């Protein structure tokens, strides 16, 4: 009897703590959307700057995510599958952008890719400008959000037992084909989840972008710009519409993740 009462008490306490946590996460977003969501959606029709910022954010975040997936997947696989000297150091270096304050990340990118840098200068000579351009936005997004993809992708590959691949190899598949036919499909669900997190982080990026490319404006920079220029009432609808629109692809991708059986191994 005492055990049952204790179990009930523990259940109630756990439910309370979880509810408070959920409220803590949902309340600010809910408040923002309820305060300015409707106005933000209405302004979509009448505010071309907002529409452009939204489109720019979606496109640049998607390009950054695709670049992260293409470049990061082999690295994540390498770290997850092979034990080599310096693996821990490589993994730590790849996590490093997560620890750097984002404006500092923007400054670092500016130093590496700006007009004063050899790379930036060479690119400029070739007619390709990084700072103050869409490419700068993509670079900033990629730099700050790719470590999230790499980390989650590493876990996704690590969850696939290497013996599946071993069996595929003994069944005649060279390494690349075994990866394509077995490992990749089994890790897909984790990789999609990793890409979603990366995309979401790229969409929300502000600090690094504002240093590298103030104009053209992504939504986060536009929201900041309106806040500093016109005050909170003008900034709120921009922020609210970003939240509402980001919710759509996030929900779709999460639903795909939970509904599909593939990858649940």
């Amino acid at each position, binding site marked *: 009897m005492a055990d049952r009462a204790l179990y009930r008490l523990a259940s109630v306490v756990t439910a309370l703590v979880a509810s408070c946590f959920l409220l803590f996460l949902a309340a600010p977003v809910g408040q923002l959307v309820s305060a300015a969501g409707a106005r933000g959606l209405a302004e979509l029709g009448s505010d071309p700057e907002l529409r452009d910022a939204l489109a720019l954010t979606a496109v640049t975040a998607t390009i950054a995510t695709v670049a992260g997936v293409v470049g990061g997947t082999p690295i994540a696989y390498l770290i997850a599958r092979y034990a080599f000297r310096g693996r821990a150091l490589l993994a730590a270096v790849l996590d490093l952008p997560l620890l750097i304050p984002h404006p500092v990340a923007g400054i670092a990118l500016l130093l590496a890719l700006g007009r004063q840098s050899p790379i930036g200068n060479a690119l400029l000579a070739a007619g390709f400008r990084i700072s103050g351009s869409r490419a700068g936005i993509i670079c900033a997004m990629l730099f700050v959000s790719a470590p999230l993809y790499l980390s989650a992708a590493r876990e996704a590959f690590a969850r696939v037992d290497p013996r599946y691949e*071993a*069996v595929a190899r003994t069944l005649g598949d060279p390494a690349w084909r075994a990866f394509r036919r077995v490992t990749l499909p089994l890790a897909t669900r984790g990789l999609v989840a990793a890409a979603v997190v990366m995309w979401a982080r790229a969409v929300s990026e502000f600090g690094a972008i504002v240093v590298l490319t103030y104009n053209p404006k992504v939504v986060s920079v536009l929201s900041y710009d309106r806040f500093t220029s016109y005050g909170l009432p003008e900034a709120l609808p921009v922020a609210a519409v970003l939240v509402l629109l980001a919710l759509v692809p996030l929900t779709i991708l999460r639903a795909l993740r939970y509904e599909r059986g*593939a990858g649940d191994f």
Partner: protein
Amino acid sequence: MIECVSVEARVGAFSLRDVTFAVPSGGYGVVIGPAGSGKTTLLEVLGGVIRSTTGTIRLGGRDATRLAPEARRVGLVYQHAYLFPHLSVARNIVYGASGDAGAREIATRLGADRLWARDVQSLSGGERQLVALARALARRPDVLLLDEPFSALDPRRRAHVRREVRAIHRELGMTVLQVTHDFAEAGLLGDVAILLDGGRVLQHGAPDEVFRRPASPYIAEFLGAENVLAGTVMPCDDGGVAGEELAAGGGPGGGAAHASYRALEFRAAGTSLTIVAVGEADPGPGHAVIRAEEIVVSRAPGASSARNSFRGRVIDVATTGALTRVTVDVDGLPLVAALTTRSARELALAPGVDVYASFKAMAVHLC
């Protein structure tokens, strides 16, 4: 054939060390050993999944030491099957096969054809093993590596699948190496038995030889010999009797008498019991191994022509189906004999009953 010469490999803190053995072309080898002895690692090294650090591996007559897994022409079946969960049973089976028809035929022979349209996730453990076997065999490999492939099958199906695998192995001329914990299976299937422990080959040879003549008391105990006695080996003056046994019954293990075998005596430590044996052991401290099934129990003396016959008292009778194990106390030494349950009933064996435990000199293996 499968030939390993001084093969070494490392997986984390575990190492395979100086592994040397050979399974002849078209032969069936069995690997036995305790958990963690490196049995699965050995198969993975042969399959090329784990690279050996030193030594030579020859598969089907060619040096495969540095070959990639896909170039070795091996089939690898893990105990846990590792069916590709994103593919159907049919697509698993045809995965490495050159044609669907051949794959389907193998599946039919193993009884996996009825699972053809099923989803992998819905299979039981035994069904998974069937499909994994069919998948490996469908590729018709030169060498088949099996890691306890029948462990999840029910006894009836196990017997059927074992027969079919043996038949396919003969038809295709494959060389097979199978890991098993089942000593009966090892004796039933194997042409060569390899005993592995701590990453080393302790003994290898014909299964009957390994079971009857274990190289050490540890091996004897691992292989299930109930009577492993410590004591002293001494020369025997009365070589004639043992010699008669040799002449009558052939050499140890039923083979031809070995010229170097001689009669020996073994005195069990802590008792006055002296056992007559035949073997090659050097005089001095050693162990005598007597398999339980070699000991005859009778109520009267002289019921057997065996050289060793000792009076004792039954202290335990344990019946498992058709077999009964009787423990007889002989001068403080417990000897375990295996009888048919029917014989044990006829002899009315029960704790406290006085009996004679007899066994031939040739049944005693000294190591």
